[in-house]
């Protein structure tokens, strides 16, 4: 643990030092191609002071966190039950899978034109785009979780005369939950990585909007600030999810061993 932190810390510090050296001291990388630490700091000062792309950094962060959370929740609330159902019932799987297989490879971005046509420029369209990205991992992992559920546990429950509702709540759901949580992590990550695309849909504020604007402006410092903000937000939300996971899966030896 401590060794890991040390090497990790040293790596980060080295990377920062190399960045500074390459952009600011030796000018090996021209500031037009990649921002120097000073450029980045200036961009940060601008977005926290005067604002950029219609808002201060905090406005953008709050807006994006809200959007991501909402899209993520919608995806989870639809994806997990569908995955559980497909995992449990071969009939449901046979019925749904072909459609799922055909729609799945279509990238969330490709839905943008239709999302605008269908839902306009409001949050609904953005959430639809995020949903397309976050939905798939939720379904697949819930499905796999059920399929990998120890068959003897299912039989044990049946032998104990467990009624369906109790079975779903006390066997199926907890049994699949390690996989479901893996799916949630992937869904969350997908939500964040789709944010930039979602905010192509006429966003007024948001980190995706910042990145889009900075891209239009060819403003490398601001692009980097946007990227760092996205990373930190994604990281924090994943950490929160990890805590929820550890609580929910306290019975699971594997999760405990991981830390």
């Amino acid at each position, binding site marked *: 643990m401590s060794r890991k932190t040390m090497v990790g810390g040293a790596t980060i510090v080295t990377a920062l030092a190399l960045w500074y050296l390459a952009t600011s001291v030796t000018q090996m990388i021209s500031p037009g191609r990649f921002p120097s630490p000073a450029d980045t700091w200036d961009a940060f000062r601008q977005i926290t002071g005067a604002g950029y792309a219609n808002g201060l950094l905090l406005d953008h962060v709050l807006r994006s966190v809200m959007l991501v959370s909402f899209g993520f929740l919608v995806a989870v609330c639809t994806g997990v039950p569908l995955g559980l159902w497909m995992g449990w019932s071969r009939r449901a799987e046979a019925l749904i899978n072909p459609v799922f297989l055909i729609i799945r490879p279509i990238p969330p971005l490709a839905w943008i034109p239709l999302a605008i046509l269908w839902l306009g420029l409001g949050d609904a369209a953005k959430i639809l785009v995020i949903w397309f990205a976050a939905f798939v991992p939720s379904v697949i992992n819930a499905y796999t979780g059920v399929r990998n559920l*120890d068959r*003897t*546990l299912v*039989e*044990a*429950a*049946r*032998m*104990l*005369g*467990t*009624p369906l509702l*109790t079975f779903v709540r*006390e*066997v199926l759901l*907890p*049994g699949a*939950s390690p996989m479901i949580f893996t799916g949630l992590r992937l869904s969350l990550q997908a939500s964040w990585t789709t944010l930039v695309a979602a905010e192509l849909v006429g966003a007024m504020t948001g980190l995706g909007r910042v990145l889009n604007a900075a891209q239009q402006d060819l403003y490398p410092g601001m692009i980097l600030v946007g990227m760092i903000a996205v990373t930190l937000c994604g990281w924090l939300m994943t950490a929160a999810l990890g805590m929820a996971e550890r609580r929910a*899966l306290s*019975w*699971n*030896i594997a999760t405990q061993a991981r830390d």
Partner: protein
Amino acid sequence: MGEIRFDDVGRIYGDRNGGFEALKGVNLAIADKEFMAVVGPSGCGKTTCLRFVAGFDRPTSGTVSVDGVRVASPGPDRAVVFQQFALMPWKTVRENIELGLRNKRLPRPERAERIERILALMNLTAYADAFPHQLSGGMQQRVSIARAYVLDPEVLLMDEPFGALDAQTRVVMQEELVRLARRNPRTVMFITHAVEEAVYLADRVAIMARQPGRVKEIVDIRTIREAERWDDHEKIEDVMDLESFVHLRTQIWRSLREEKAMEIA
């Protein structure tokens, strides 16, 4: 109240024409409160037979019935003890044992009382709130047996319940099971690979053969056990040193070895 009958039972896997005949013409009757051990080479269909009684699977021909009623689905009157314990890892020992009672809609105080009693009987009281992964294999198997016993089932089905335990733990469990079975007799179908275990525990031992799977021979143990008063000995190794025991064991061994020899030839 707990009589199991196999009448000309067959099971074909795969499609009905070109399939693999796992069982053919199995006839077996386990009397009420009888402890029947089933031994036989790997793949002879022991587990398949047990799953019929449990209601997890159905024969493709013949009938399996309990108390004259054809088995249709699993239920708490036929409790199963699995080799890999099959405890819910997300439930504590108490919650695992409680699930079957809750399904029976027993009132809470009665549930609590029955759980306390079985925990005490199985030496588990101190571990009531532990999770399965915090217990040794032997203790997990004890929980699994407690979960079955607490339902007070007519029939107990055990598929190599001690197969995953180490040899020392195994004998302890065997001795405990003997005590439990003698004090509180139930109809038991007990699958094992270990001939000594079968002889030590059972009233009768059914020997199965392969290709197709069938019951080849049934050896009566009870008569000799009672005649030679095995149950007066407390420890398994004392019983195992008895000549009557060694004799029965070797008889069953030879019968199984024949099978093995035929197979290798």
